[in-house]
């Protein structure tokens, strides 16, 4: 799709697209000049802390708060019942996941607690420490109830039912049935079945969830400094549940210290903070501490998947069947729901391959554990690990190189547009080109030779692959059609100032990915202005266009295209003025390096700064019938496809110490096709960071619960996240299949690393342990599990 003058943004001179320019907003972060929500200090600001449930399921008999109210520095104490009068409950279902149910959820527990860590009482004090002191003085009398904490038994007839209005603990079930799997399995030469498990983990953003709510009763205006990925969504939610006008809520999130999907949801403690500010008419701050983050942030994954694959002797995939079970919390999370991960798994399993017969069942069950919701690469690591684990096993059973079997079954690069077996349209992918590129990067034959030699010496190394498709750039089909107030479109405003600089507002948000850098590079290219003369504003509902924010790998593809369009409009406006001043047809002029130039020979004619001066100070020198417009706003969302699928293929090389069970990652390779690459260094680091979060889930991260629903490792010493010393260097390669939906052609790049790493690691681990004839399929692959598998303990 080219611009109106026939030129695409890719034809622009002096392009900043495809260049690793430094991120403009990183400098201040390197100097300690960031501005995170916890850095905000307002006059008369109070602090809130929460008493959280110590039990996973109990009736609240009595709450005694008198001593706390009288404690030093305490201003107010609120129970769930009191806050329910100010903040209405929500229901975390989206209507397009048909049949999903979840009961109303109050911001604080009212008469029952349903997970350990659920907020019960809010204490507001002059300082956080004083609020915490007062919490110690609150007495809550509970009556313990039986629990549902094991997803495998939570649907049994004798299981404790968490919500009394429901007959069982089922939140949602989805079934997909394509072709005839029964006949296909009967015809298959080899049928493999395996159960895969994915531990419950969490996001661990280094900056915990933080919010400062400042309600001004004079103006009836609510200003929020919030660590969030979706400011306009939050604005809509706060307005709805606190009975406020949306245009009188301003959400500011200047710097966000990591999000990974975790900061795109409604949390009771944050809504309580806002409700309290509304009640008191004063600023109130809540910053989750690390311990409560483990109990109150969304958790992720927690799936058991039974998988089955049927292949012919020649290696053709004939059928795949999966049965996925996931345990969420006692509520589906608002407003995106806790069904999306299962939905994705049903959609994505078998994604890279062409086959006709597919059956999937996904069930989402309520548990007395923290709510579970969307975390980076939603559903992907599960769908991909299951698919690629089954492919690897089938290849081994028919004695075929697994990569050969993949290549045999992959949808060919020239066979697009196409559909996944589950029926989702796919515009264009590059599995073949990406796989070829990966195999050029990986010295596969050498690794195999070395593996053989080292096995003689008792050293066990393995190599494993995982190919994948990834959902990016989602349109309204993702959330909007299900009734959630989540924008699928984004906007960009570009304003020329009197000195020839551009002030740019974007509705996508920055959490470190480089969103502001991407927008700056795109606008610089589209207009012809150098990035040093561009200021990008993001994360402020009052100063940016309306939009979705940054999640689901959508910022560059959607927000970037809006920026390209807005840049084009302002360039045309500048050239209209230049045409008048220079007595030239605007179409014969262009802008390069802040100068208006002749399109024909590039000769400089006048500066853009001069245009700014004339327009703003000397409009009298322009024709009477001409009005210059030096601000442009454009919006964009993808309309032809529900998502822009990307593809990627990973290889993991690792060594297992069979005496200790420790897994040492030697190297990881990933080839990623995210369409147009705007900033190669940023994209590579998105992939690397994503791979490392995938490594976390595969090897280290797990929220360990006992049968009483108590978290046993809720601190950073016992909950392991990847540290620098145990990580390999990660080699990243690219293939660029642009989406033709937009001129920019960019797809998302934020999640493919997390999506692909766990499957590749599992396959490499099982390859390493081939001589022991064992197979590990339960993540995280801890040393204990390795030693148990090989019979050492």
């Amino acid at each position: 799709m080219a611009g109106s003058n026939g030129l695409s943004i890719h034809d622009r001179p002096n392009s900043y697209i495809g260049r690793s320019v430094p991120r403009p907003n990183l400098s201040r972060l390197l100097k300690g000049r960031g501005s995170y929500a916890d850095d905000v200090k307002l006059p008369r600001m109070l602090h809130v802390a929460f008493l959280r449930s110590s039990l996973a399921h109990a009736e609240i008999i009595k709450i005694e708060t008198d001593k706390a109210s009288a404690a030093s520095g305490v201003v107010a104490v609120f129970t769930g019942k009191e806050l329910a009068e100010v903040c209405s409950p929500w229901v975390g279902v989206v209507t397009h996941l048909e049949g999903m149910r979840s009961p109303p959820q109050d911001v604080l527990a009212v008469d029952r607690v349903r997970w350990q860590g659920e907020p019960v009482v809010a204490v507001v004090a002059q300082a956080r420490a004083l609020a915490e002191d007062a919490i110690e003085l609150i007495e809550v009398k509970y009556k313990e109830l039986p629990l549902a904490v094991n997803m495998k038994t939570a649907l049994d007839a004798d299981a404790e039912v968490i919500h009394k209005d429901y007959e069982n603990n089922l939140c949602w079930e989805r079934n997909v049935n394509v072709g005839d799997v029964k006949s296909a399995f009967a015809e298959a030469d080899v049928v493999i079945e395996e159960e895969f498990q994915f531990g419950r983990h969490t996001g661990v953003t280094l900056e915990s969830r933080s919010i400062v709510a400042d309600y001004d009763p004079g103006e009836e205006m609510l200003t929020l400094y919030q660590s969030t990925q979706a400011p306009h969504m939050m604005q809509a939610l706060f307005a709805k549940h606190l009975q406020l006008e949306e245009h009188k809520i301003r959400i500011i999130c200047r710097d966000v210290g990591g999000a990974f999907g975790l900061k795109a949801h409604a949390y009771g403690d944050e809504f309580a903070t806002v409700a309290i500010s509304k009640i008191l008419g004063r600023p109130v701050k809540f910053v989750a501490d690390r311990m409560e983050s483990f109990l109150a942030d969304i958790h992720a994954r927690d799936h058991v998947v039974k998988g089955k694959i049927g292949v012919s002797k020649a290696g053709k995939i004939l059928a795949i069947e999966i049965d996925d079970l996931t345990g969420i919390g006692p509520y589906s999370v608002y407003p995106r729901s806790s069904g999306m991960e299962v939905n994705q798994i049903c959609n994505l399993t078998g994604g890279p391959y062409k086959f006709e017969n597919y059956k999937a069942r996904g069930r989402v069950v309520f548990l007395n554990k923290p709510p579970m919701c969307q975390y980076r690469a939603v559903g992907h690591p599960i769908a991909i690990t299951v698919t690629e684990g089954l492919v690897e096993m089938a290849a081994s059973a028919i004695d075929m190189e697994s990569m050969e079997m993949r290549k045999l079954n992959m949808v060919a690069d020239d066979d697009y547009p196409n559909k996944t077996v589950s029926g989702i349209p796919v515009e264009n992918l590059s599995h073949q080109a990406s796989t070829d590129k990966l195999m050029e990067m990986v010295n596969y034959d050498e690794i195999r030779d070395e593996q053989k030699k080292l096995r003689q010496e008792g050293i066990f190394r393995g190599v494993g692959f995982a190919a994948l498709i990834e959902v990016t750039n989602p349109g309204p089909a993702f959330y909007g059609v299900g009734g959630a107030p989540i924008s699928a479109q984004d906007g960009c405003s570009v304003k020329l100032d009197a000195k020839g600089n551009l002030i740019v507002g974007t509705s996508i948000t920055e959490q470190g990915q480089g969103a502001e850098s991407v927008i700056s590079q795109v606008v610089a290219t589209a207009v012809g202005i150098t990035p040093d003369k561009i200021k990008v504003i993001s994360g402020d509902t009052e100063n940016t266009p309306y939009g979705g924010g940054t999640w689901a790998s959508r910022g560059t593809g959607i927000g970037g295209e809006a920026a390209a369009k807005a840049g084009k409009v302002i360039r045309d406006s500048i050239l209209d003025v230049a045409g008048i001043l220079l007595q030239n047809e605007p179409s014969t002029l262009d802008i390069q390096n802040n100068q208006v130039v002749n399109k024909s020979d590039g000769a400089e004619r006048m500066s853009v700064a001069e245009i700014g001066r004339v327009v703003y100070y000397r409009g009298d020198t322009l024709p009477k019938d001409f009005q210059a417009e030096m601000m442009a706003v454009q919006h964009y969302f993808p309309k032809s496809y529900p998502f822009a699928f990307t593809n990627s293929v990973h290889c993991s090389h690792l060594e297992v110490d069979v005496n200790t069970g420790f897994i040492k990652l030697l190297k990881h390779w990933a080839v990623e096709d995210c369409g147009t690459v705007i900033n190669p260094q940023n994209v590579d680091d998105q992939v690397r960071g994503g791979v490392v979060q995938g490594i976390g889930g595969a090897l280290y991260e797990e929220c360990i619960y006992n049968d009483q629903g108590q978290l046993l490792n809720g601190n950073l010493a016992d909950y392991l996240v990847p540290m620098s010393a145990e990580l390999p260097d990660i080699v990243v390669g690219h293939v660029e299949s642009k989406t033709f939906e937009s001129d920019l052609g960019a797809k998302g790049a934020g999640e493919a690393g997390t999506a692909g790493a766990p499957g590749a690691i599992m396959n490499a681990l099982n390859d390493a342990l081939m001589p022991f004839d064992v197979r590990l399929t339960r993540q995280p692959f801890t040393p204990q599990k390795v030693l148990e598998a090989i019979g050492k303990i």
Partner: protein
Amino acid sequence: MSKLVQVTTSVNGENVSRGVEPRTNLVDFVRYDLELTGSHVGCEHGVCGACTIRLNGNIVRGCLVLAVQADGGTVETIEGLSESGKISDLQDSFLSRNAGQCGSCTPGMLLTADALLEENKKPTRTEIREYISGNYCRCTGYEAIVDAIETTSKKRQGEG
């Protein structure tokens, strides 16, 4: 509220004297009393390294040291090290290599990297990875940080 204790200390070269609660840790003192918000709080139990601060020349976990322990001492934070220009080459390397994403770990990471390069002028990549393994980063996957520290070391050795 317990009785306040007077703490007098040099912070980034400026003498400050404040009454603090005995239980106040150093990073809270720096962030909330002195409004130097560049030092971050990640876990408050000494694991993540986001609160790394220099106290009497050594890097410490600001969440495991009490403010009263800084009495009579010298405290340096990311703000002071930035203003003095001491780590400007390290910061330049981090910028050009994109070795910070969300910025939460970044100030602590820079202080740790600075301490490493004081102790070991030419660390190997493995030595860098080990030294910074007490500073958690959730965004970058660490490789960019290792690259930036390595580049700085090489430049300081005249190899860059």
